[in-house]
């Protein structure tokens, strides 16, 4: 066992996947010589050569489109879009093409593409470096969207995503890049489409993913200290599809549900979770499903992000509201 950062875990997953299958190729802006602006691809170009890990021109749409072509040809591309905000220039290729090509080919062509996107905020960055792009992808049929919150999951889910015959958008919570976990690699955790309970409880269910899992855990600890509540924290891990059974099983137990995410509130993953919960656990609900989220504004400048992001206080507000309902 050693303390592995999420960056190192993702790096190891890419290395092991490339070792295991020479059709796995990694490319993107600055991923080669520099090893990525977050050093996620450090050493891959040296180890596997510029044929399999290479820098691209500045062209996000091109990066995803290139991956599609490589996949049609039988490769397993793992392109990187450097930042969440820079995934938007690639949305045409991602939403119109990557998501639909399998269907368009009459099911004859698989697209085992994993688009890695360092995502979400909380790192004090300039504009477009802290977006929460998940809804755009999760709302598009044909894309799987996953988001690890721990180094172990980051490794395991990336390996599984690369093995997956379908396109996967793999969102990396860059705020968690440097957190460490005592693990042995290689490691396989739960299948990537399953949610897991990070902390069990029967009073309130907190549903979160990515950066927000840590916030939810902190809020759960506070709720226990302050009010004796046993708050269950569910790490969704997969945003498309959502493991609704896991959420419903928890809400049937607690009767109270709060969804936490950084993305703006309107039409976020929280809206979908709330809808699923009321569809599937209506009779169990003691209180409305609440959302502790970012606001419906552009992501704020760095100096204001602490006020804007859903922190422990905002989560506790929601927990208290559903608990005291």
């Amino acid at each position, binding site marked *: 066992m050693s303390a592995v950062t999420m960056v190192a875990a993702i790096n190891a997953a890419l290395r092991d996947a490339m070792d295991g299958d020479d059709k796995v190729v990694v490319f993107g802006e600055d991923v080669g010589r520099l090893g990525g602006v977050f050093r996620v691809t450090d050493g891959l170009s040296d180890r596997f050569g510029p044929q399999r890990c290479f820098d691209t021109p500045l062209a996000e749409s091109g990066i995803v489109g290139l991956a599609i072509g490589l996949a049609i040809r039988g490769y397993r591309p793992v392109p990187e879009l450097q930042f969440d905000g820079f995934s938007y220039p690639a949305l045409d290729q991602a939403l119109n093409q990557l998501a639909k090509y399998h269907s368009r080919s009459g099911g004859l062509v698989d697209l085992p593409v994993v688009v890695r996107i360092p995502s979400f905020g909380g790192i004090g960055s300039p504009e477009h470096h802290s977006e929460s792009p998940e809804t755009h992808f999760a709302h598009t049929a044909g894309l799987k969207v996953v988001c690890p919150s721990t180094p172990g999951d980051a490794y395991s889910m990336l390996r599984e995503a690369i093995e997956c015959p379908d396109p996967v958008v793999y969102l990396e919570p860059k705020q968690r890049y440097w957190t460490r976990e005592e693990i042995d690699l290689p490691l396989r955790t*739960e299948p990537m489409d399953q949610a897991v309970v990070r902390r069990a409880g029967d009073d309130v269910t907190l549903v979160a993913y990515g950066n927000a899992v840590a916030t939810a855990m902190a809020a759960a*600890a506070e709720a226990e200290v*302050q009010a004796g509540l046993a708050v269950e924290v569910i790490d969704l891990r997969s945003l498309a599809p959502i493991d609704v059974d896991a959420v419903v099983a928890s809400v049937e137990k607690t009767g109270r549900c709060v969804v936490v995410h950084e993305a703006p509130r309107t039409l976020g993953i929280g809206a979908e979770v709330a809808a699923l919960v009321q569809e599937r656990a209506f009779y169990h609900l003691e209180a409305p499903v609440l959302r502790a989220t970012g606001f419906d504004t552009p992501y704020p400048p760095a100096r204001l992000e602490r006020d804007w992001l859903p922190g422990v206080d905002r989560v506790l507000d929601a927990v208290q509201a559903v608990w005291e309902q």
Partner: protein
Amino acid sequence: MRRDFLLPDLGEGLQDATVVQWHVRVGDTVHLNDRLVTVETAKASVELPSPFEGRVALLDIGEGDGLRVGERLASIDTSEDGEAAAPRAPDAALLPTGAPTGPVTRQPVLVGYGVDVVPQRATGRREWRRRKAPGRRALDGGEQGLGTTPSVPATPPNGFPVPRPLAKPPVRWLARTLDVDLHQVRPTGSRGEVTAEDVRAAAGSAATGDAAGSVGVARGEAMRQDERPSWPGGTGASGLAGDDRPEEIPVRGVRARIAERMSLSRSTIPEASAGLWVDCERLLALRAALRDDLRSGSARDVGGAEALTPFAILAWMVPFALRSAPLLNASFDAAAKVIRVSRAVHLGVATGTELGLLVPVVHGAHALGLRELAGELARLTRWAREGTLTPEQLTGSTFTITNYGALGLDDGLPVVNAPEAAILGVGAIAPRATVHDGELAVRSTAKLTCVFDHRVSDGADAARFLGRLKALVEQPELLLGTR
């Protein structure tokens, strides 16, 4: 004024640095942005400019030594001429975060100020209107545990969490308003949920709070909530002091109909009664097994599981028992001098509602499977309490059951639902001292009472019926041989 220069976030993705070389010594005068020191991270060497003008007072870190982001590198005495240089910089100015106060809270990443490293905390303690006793600990601990927490499956191995009362949001609201604990309410909804009527009934019985009120319901003498006598000042004797005139309640609607039917029954039917105790342990075990199966098995049906009450199972057994005594499933036509024995069992179920006693009918109960009957029973009961039964659902019964046990009563003497020939009363299932296998034992038992029209049948019929029902309740496997 002495100012500290803390190692800032160098934006190189690492948390610490090593001092390579100092470019100043203690006592040196430095100007703004003079190179103070060269530090090395694992990524690069970086020269750090002095943020102050003044005299170097302290150099904390030796060459070759390391320090973490946020630790003090140097102190500079700015008392002579430093104020003008950085007029607006308070002591905390040089935190890597630019945070106004407090310790270093950001850990660098490669772009931007970096991420918070202090544990996320709430702003103070908040006022909770509801709390739980401390000491109930979740499976895992605190906020830093995320990285190393073994995850547990979201769905417990048994497939279903601890049962909670089911109810629609308005029902929960009603329960809260009426101060009714849903856990204490017997659910009658088709999915096993507590209905608004269940809550009102629970609130009502709690309000009257005495056996007489409950017996009244069992005997079909329920009153509307707003027609119940209300005693100012509560239940104490003092409440009677001011005004001893009786309160007058008009008899109309369902109440009038109940009065009419009860009078008809008692005035025309020469009734007799018989009763016996049954051991319900097997019945309860059967019910538990069936519920578990429905909740977690392949035919998962949570609502169905909730509807599967002991009373529902017993009601389902009644048509089988009636085969031993068909004369109890009959009616006496005095004018025609005929006893009509019904081939089908249409089961009336006496149900207390806000309006008063109603008897919805499970038509063709003899032909229904257990889950079908239980579901139908739950639906009819709910509709009865919601007042939405159709006339068909209120007529045509050939035999009636009344479950005053649900009101906590051990025993009762029900009134035959004319023109039927008999009625079965079911007392509360509760642990009682009993003789079992020749030994004194505590077992769940219930008193079954059959009141019958002695014009139609005799005590022996009642004895056969009750005896068979007792056998089925106590040995449910006998049902396997009934068809």
